[in-house]
């Protein structure tokens, strides 16, 4: 049985004028279903680049990336979009909620693009918001919510499509330590329920929640410990 995520010799280069940056420099990595992984490393070491590749937001310059048995390297933009919609949930550092839109509609957004009927969208978004403890605030707009509450709406949104993988790039980067702890507890619970979680963080306390820690330097894996 192969791993849920299989990275083989992943290379990602960016060209800026006459300069070439190797953001990822030959990364090979397997992540099993149900794993809980923290990625760490200095700024610019390639963490977000890897997350974007695993999230099917971007394509590698070289190498192969298989997720849930599907090779992503050759897919076009619309196929990648459909793949993200089915398989991946994203949580961002800046929450990225739609302004002037209720928590419920924000949480339901991925279902809109999955072609789910309105009534079912509502029901599923509501149950995810309740799961992250926001059942009382479903009609609030992001501007009426605290940072931690906004991040919970974002988590509800990432879960609404029942994804296999939850990718979180510095999910607590914009939150104070108490709120961070609350958010991490939600992740712990989700992982116990079986979802694969990969998160990027600079904070050791946050990384401690994960079962496996991978440290990057200059686009390569420096350390991988469980």
């Amino acid at each position, binding site marked *: 049985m192969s791993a849920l995520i299989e990275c083989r010799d992943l290379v990602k280069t960016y060209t800026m004028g006459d300069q070439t940056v190797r953001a990822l420099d030959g990364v090979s990595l397997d992540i099993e279903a149900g794993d809980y992984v923290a990625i760490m490393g200095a700024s610019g070491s390639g963490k977000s680049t890897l997350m974007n590749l695993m999230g099917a*937001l971007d394509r590698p310059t070289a190498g192969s990336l298989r997720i849930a048995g599907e090779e992503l390297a050759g897919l076009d933009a*619309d196929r990648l*979009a*459909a793949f993200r*919609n089915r398989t991946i949930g994203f949580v961002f550092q800046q929450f*990225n909620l739609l302004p002037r839109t209720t928590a419920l509609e924000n949480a339901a*957004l991925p279902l809109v*693009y999955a072609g789910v009927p*309105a009534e079912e969208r509502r029901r599923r978004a509501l149950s995810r918001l309740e799961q992250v403890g926001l059942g009382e605030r479903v009609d609030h707009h992001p501007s009426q919510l605290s940072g931690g509450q906004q991040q919970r709406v974002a988590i509800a949104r990432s879960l609404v499509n029942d994804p296999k993988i939850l990718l979180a790039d510095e999910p607590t980067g914009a939150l104070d330590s108490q709120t961070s702890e609350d958010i991490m507890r939600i992740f712990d619970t989700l992982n116990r329920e079986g979802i694969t979680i990969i998160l990027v963080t600079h904070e050791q306390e946050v990384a401690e929640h994960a079962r496996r820690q991978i440290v990057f330097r200059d686009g390569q894996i420096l350390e991988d410990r469980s």
Partner: protein
Amino acid sequence: MNLISSLRIALIALRVNALRSALAMLGVIIGVASVIVLVSISEGTKRAVEEQIASFGANLLIIRPGSSMFGGRHGGAGTADPLTDSDVEAIRNEVAGLAGVSGEVNASSTVVFGGVNWSTRIQGVNPDYFSARDWTIAEGRTFSGAEDQSGRRYVVVGQTIINELFDGADPVGQAIRIGGQPFEVIGTVAPKGENSWGMDQDDIIFAPLNTIRQRFGAGIRGTQRDAVQTIYADIAPGESTGRVIADIQDLLRIRRDVPPGAEDDFAVGSLAEFIRARNETESQLGLLLAVGAAIVLLVGGIGIMNIMLVSVTERTREIGLRLAVGAKRRDVRNQFLIESIVLCLIGGLAGLVTGVGGTLIYAQVGQLDIAIDPMIVGIAIGASALVGVFFGLYPAHRASRLDPIDALRFE
């Protein structure tokens, strides 16, 4: 993504920047409004022209000596031999498909009744004239062919004569003096009002053609004492105007000894065609205005495109997020396209209201003929939707080509 969600997103986005949306619509509003004013006025003019043609006699042919009747080229109208009573007879007897034929001679004179004087036009005509020119007898009767032949001093008078000489009372049976000679009023014609160049058509007296010729010498030119100035021929319904004109031309060429190959020394014209031709030049002005309206719509469309490009830039992160959670390119493109169409449709409806209001004001102030046709609703919706699609396509396409990562990172 379905249409209703797209519409909701579009309306929310437009409401957030209500003032900006309204300003962006302005060009579309003005463009659609001017199209509607234009269409209403040109439809109104067209209808007025048709009414005018009907008031002259819709199927009327006018025959005059000289090679040209209308327009600038009056090829020897004065020198050609006049038309005569026998031409009228010949046309009546030999050309098929005519409902009536009448000669006409004109005089003008002072008319007296009681102590009142009135100066007016006197037209000597044959009995067919009334039906040919669509004059309806209101009171009394017209004269017969026999009364025309024998030169009876009978007249049929128009509404202005009734008002001026008889103070509006029924004049039938009254005796009046025209140029010092006694005449009896035997009938009146229903009023027609002013014609399009402002002449009072009801300020007129009709009398038998022979009577006028005998009493006033009108229509007599040179030695021909049976001359008429104009012949009117009324084409029967369903007959071909072209065929009737050709038959009259053939007949008159023979009667007037026009050598083969030479130009006609008379002219046969259709008044309806003349008026339509004159209106044609007016509709060229309409075309110019239509081009103006199209330019306003174009500029309005560019305004829409500009605001949509601004909107796409402002909402780059939103687009990035939508792409990240699974929006396909066409979802993003459709979202912005629908937004642009909705923007233009709202502008189009506002333009419709403005245009109808403007048309009504214009008609009130300018005393113009207008016709508000339900089809302008279709024009307003069609034109604005077209502008929305055309000028929304590029911004929408740009939005759909954004890279999700770049868009999410956009500040």
